[in-house]
């Protein structure tokens, strides 16, 4: 059998109510092309891409809309044919102002593919060509942060990658997009893994899946067995949040600890999301740029929770309407997962390459409390997967002693929310750390 059980147990973590049953058995559906797409140029981490089209231009499907503006940046392609109505400043999912290209779509099928790469003979391509193709296709990390994939796949020469981990843990409650992807397109996923293995010259790859998804584990291991693929193994992880966090996952599978402030490459590991891997497959084998993704629309506030393939730039309202509309008692709309996602002020925000979920939550699913002083119970310390001391850190932050917070490694906080989730005093711990991190990042480096 090629199923491995993760050997190491990380510290901390919590067990929120998963509620994955809402959308887990819903087959992925394709959203009919919306009339208006508002494509943000901040689809990724790093510099926003620079628009190369202007108002009034006619663009074809797959045509380049905005080019990468720097090393850590990624190009954006048109998800449909149509006319550019305007380029305006809008609001991104995180609330920050972003540049949006407004595209009026016209449902014609004139497409323009960018490259002339052989499709079935990718094994003959050199790693450089593949990498270049991934860069041109604008592939970025689909898990949430949106780190440009070609930057990740070109580690510094002194750091040899030995192990590849494909993150299919999907530990955020509600979300099932990656799960559906693994069930419905195992061939794309496995081919994507083989492409990454070739680029990095890695022989050992693991697909990390939490053990609450037995169907995916079974299906993938059977697929690997049938195809006689030896170097890729399925690794099952115990179910708890945040098992999908990069550093935690590396520790669970390999027992290696990524140093504070370091990258997975420092311990010879690279973690790639399942959605990203499929995007790599599409880019290299099908020659398709990253223009659409699977998004889970879920929560008790939506009529029919579903997994939807939507083009980037789709307003959330379109997704909500497609899934039967919102119920009356919706209290909160969240872009992403409930633990780390962003609450939205309006349904006019648009999807990006990193929108893994859109949650419409009712009053019983969210918690609104008055926060009270810390009672020093230590539950946050027990829950912190980064081995930090949230109770102490939050007190430094409250006293605006950000230097002491930095000395106690507040910068290592990944904002997973386990501390705030477990706090009986309902203290806004993560918000304190976010404020402190923003303050510290704004300080000039010494």
């Amino acid at each position, binding site marked *: 059998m090629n199923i491995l059980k993760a050997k190491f147990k990380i510290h901390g973590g919590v067990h929120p109510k998963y509620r994955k049953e809402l959308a887990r058995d819903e087959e992925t559906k394709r959203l009919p092309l919306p009339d208006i797409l508002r494509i943000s140029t901040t689809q990724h981490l790093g510099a926003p891409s620079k628009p190369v089209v202007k108002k009034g231009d006619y663009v074809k499907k797959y045509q380049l809309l905005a080019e990468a503006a720097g090393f850590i940046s990624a190009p954006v392609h048109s998800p449909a044919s149509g006319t550019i109505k305007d380029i305006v400043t809008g609001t991104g999912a995180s609330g*920050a102002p972003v540049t949006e290209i407004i595209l009026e779509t016209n449902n014609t099928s004139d497409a323009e593919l960018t490259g002339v790469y052989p499709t079935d003979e990718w094994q003959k391509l050199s790693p450089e060509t593949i990498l270049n193709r991934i860069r041109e296709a604008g592939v970025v990390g689909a898990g949430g942060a949106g780190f440009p994939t070609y930057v990740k796949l070109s580690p510094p020469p002194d750091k040899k990658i030995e192990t590849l981990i494909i993150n299919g843990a999907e530990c955020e409650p509600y979300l099932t997009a990656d799960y559906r992807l693994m069930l419905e397109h195992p061939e794309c996923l496995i081919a994507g893994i083989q492409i990454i293995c070739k680029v990095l010259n890695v022989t050992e790859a693991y697909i990390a899946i939490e053990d609450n998804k037995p169907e995916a584990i079974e299906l993938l291991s059977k697929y690997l067995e049938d195809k006689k693929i030896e170097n890729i193994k399925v690794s099952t992880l115990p179910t708890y949040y945040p098992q999908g966090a990069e550093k935690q996952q590396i520790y669970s599978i390999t027992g290696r600890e990524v140093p504070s402030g370091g990258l997975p490459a420092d311990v010879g590991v690279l973690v790639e999301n399942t959605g990203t891997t499929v995007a790599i497959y599409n880019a290299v084998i099908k020659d398709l740029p990253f223009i659409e993704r699977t998004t889970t629309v879920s929560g008790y506030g939506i009529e029919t929770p579903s997994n939807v393939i939507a083009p980037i730039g789709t307003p959330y309202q379109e997704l909500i309407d497609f899934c039967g509309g919102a119920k009356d008692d919706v209290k909160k709309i969240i872009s992403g997962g409930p633990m780390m996602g962003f609450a939205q002020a309006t349904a006019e925000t648009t999807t990006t390459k990193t929108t893994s979920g859109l949650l419409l939550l009712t009053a019983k699913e969210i918690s609104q409390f008055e926060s009270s002083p810390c009672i020093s119970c230590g539950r946050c310390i027990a829950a912190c997967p980064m081995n930090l001391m949230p109770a102490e850190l939050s007190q430094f932050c409250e006293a605006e002693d950000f230097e002491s917070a930095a000395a106690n490694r507040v910068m290592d906080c990944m904002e997973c929310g386990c501390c705030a989730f477990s706090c009986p005093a309902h203290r806004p711990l993560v918000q304190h750390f976010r404020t402190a991190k923003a303050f510290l990042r704004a300080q000039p480096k010494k």
Partner: protein
Amino acid sequence: MIETVLTIIEPYLPIIKTVFAITCIGFGCSFALAIAAKFFEVKDDPRIGEVNELLPGANCGACGYAGCMDYAKAVVMDDAELNRCAPGGADLTATLAEYLGKTAEAAEKQVAIVLCMGTNDAAKCRFEYNGIADCRAAHLVGGGDKACTYGCLGYSSCATVCPTQAIEMVDGVAKVHPELCISCGKCVTACPRNLIKLVPEKNTVHILCSSNDKGPIVRKVCTKGCIGCTMCVKLTKEEESVFMDGFLAKIDYSKEVQNKVIVEKCPPKCIIDTTINN
């Protein structure tokens, strides 16, 4: 006779010896210290201490030095400008100039002003915020709950840092009491939206809006926002005291607004004259 004395003091001899030895050591050390004081003497300007006495002692840092003592040192030793102390104002500059026998021009008295009128009634909110009551934290949550992305969030970060409690939150917007303001500039750096400016006290006409959005967008989110109609610029054409910066009218604080009719004429009423409506 001597023998009798000796026999009496004999039990006390160790004490006497010790006292004598310690006295000798004491004298020796004080002598060494006296020599050291003479040789290693640091010539300190007595004026530094006295200048420090003259300074207000607020240690606010408005002068750009680490505190009053540091500024006193800079004034005496490095010929720093005498008008840097904002809390002291013109009086202090004159006193310092007289004491040091120098001439100095008093700096214009400045006061902080919050360039926003988006009170709870005037400005709309986009969502319900129930996080930390701090503007910097609120600003990080989706850009803040105010619908206007430029306006005052009203979580009193500026009021918290103000050393003289000169800032009061009125209807969800910070308001500076100019008579209490020592123009230290702490609120200017505390505001995550850069709404607070230090302006000359003699200027009484202010445009209290910072929104650089186009008129229709401003109208949607705030009834008191500058809509960029340029009426104030046209009315003050000759004196050139108001100018447009994008879609926002701004006062040129190097000039004084003469044509105060703009206060009345401004359609959204975001221009105020502090001598009239304060």
